[in-house]
């Protein structure tokens, strides 16, 4: 217990007999800054790798506006709104955090506790939104067909808007069962079967003459995906390999597999940071309530955990730009 109740002038520059702190920063705060620096480089490594791969496939990369179009409880296509909401939640939780730090400077225990509490709630809303975003992304919205070389083709109506597979395909009863280790070879299994077979999609497509196929290729004049003529569409569809719905690490209906891989990895890594931040905040919140910092007459711990929390917000600003805007 003695370690937790530090004296007023405590700092960990133990070897420094002059009691003069380098840059007038406490040991803990400086180390938090250096950690943040290294973590910033980790994140930038990921985001720059995303940029490199995107430049490599610049002609075929999915368009974010067509991927993230959902809002909870609302039908229709609303790009950006939900991520904008998430961004606001995170910025606002940063505000309550910095208000907590400020209240700490004035040694107002109750105020610090309430602001910390608000920060934790904001973080929880953000992580929940992130989970919902993942769920929507994994479930998919329209469905697509994957070619033998991994390309994705999507379906559009006469106006160029994407249509769902369900809207033109009818499923026949099939006897094909999902291969899991229980009913087949014990050492292998397959992912859950798509709702439709290739043959059913081709049949439905032939019955609806207003449909065409959209490829991954981007027309740089209009910054939109190339739509094929009916005849070309039929030829391409005849070469299709599998029906894809939603996204996983191996295939996704939105286009390049690497797009989903990077999405899961970078937003997942960020989400994990937010989650850890919430845990840290909860620990500090309880320390505030039991009066640890009140006894120290020093709320610097709130400031340090606040630095981490703001950093998480800072990273999100960049993730938001590079995944959703640019």
């Amino acid at each position, binding site marked *: 217990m003695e370690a937790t109740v530090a004296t007023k002038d405590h700092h960990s520059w133990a070897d420094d007999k002059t009691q003069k702190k380098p840059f007038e920063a406490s040991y803990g705060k400086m180390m938090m800054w250096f950690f*943040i620096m290294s973590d910033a480089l980790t994140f930038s490594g990921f985001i720059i790798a995303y940029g*490199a791969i995107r430049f490599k496939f610049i002609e075929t990369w999915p368009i974010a506006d067509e991927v993230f179009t959902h809002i909870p409880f609302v039908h229709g296509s609303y790009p950006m709104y939900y991520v904008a909401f998430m961004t606001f939640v995170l910025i606002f939780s940063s505000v309550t955090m910095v208000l907590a730090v400020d209240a700490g400077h004035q040694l107002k225990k109750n105020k610090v506790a309430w602001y910390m509490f608000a920060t934790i709630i904001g973080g929880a809303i953000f992580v929940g939104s992130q989970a919902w975003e993942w769920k929507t992304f994994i479930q998919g919205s329209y469905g697509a067909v994957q070619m033998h070389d991994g390309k994705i083709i999507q379906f559009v109506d006469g106006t160029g808007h994407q249509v769902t597979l369900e809207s033109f395909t009818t499923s026949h009863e099939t006897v094909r069962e999902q291969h899991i280790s229980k009913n087949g070879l014990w050492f292998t299994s397959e992912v859950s079967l798509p709702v439709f077979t290739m043959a059913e999609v081709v049949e439905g497509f032939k019955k609806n003459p207003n449909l065409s196929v959209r490829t991954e290729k981007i027309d740089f004049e209009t910054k939109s995906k190339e739509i094929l003529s009916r005849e070309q569409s039929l030829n391409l569809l005849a070469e299709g390999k599998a029906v894809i719905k939603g996204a996983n690490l191996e295939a996704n209906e939105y286009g390049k597999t690497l797009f989903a891989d990077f999405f899961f990895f970078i937003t997942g890594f960020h989400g994990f940071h937010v989650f850890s931040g919430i845990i840290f905040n909860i620990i500090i919140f309880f320390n505030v309530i039991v009066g640890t910092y009140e006894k120290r007459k020093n709320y610097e711990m709130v400031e340090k955990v606040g630095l981490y929390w703001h950093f998480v917000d800072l990273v999100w600003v960049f993730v938001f730009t590079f995944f959703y805007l640019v």
Partner: protein
Amino acid sequence: MAHESHPSSLLFGLVKPRNNVSKIWWVFGFLSIITIVEVFLGISKPASLHLSSFLGTSPLNWIFLILTLVKAYGITWAFMHMDGEKKWFRRAIVWTTIFLICYLTLILLIEGSYFHDVMAPYVKWDY
């Protein structure tokens, strides 16, 4: 504990908040307005900005990038109290990070474009 009774000014001295709390709310408003502008541009995508090209990418992308950096500056300086740290401590953190990120970005984006130039001609589109 280093505690300033007077908050430092914002936007290079243009705004001088009365106290720390009003400074925080001022920065929040500033960041919110930038985010709203970003979202508005991201949804409307004006053709003149989106479909033209300027220094290798569309002007819209340049706007997003610059606004993002402005937001990052706001968060780091005001919320993380970088403006209150010693000058060379601040520079040790900020300059190092920015230099390494710029370096990595330059190398990898050139590499990505090179990959594209080399490999894209071999991608088959007629089946």
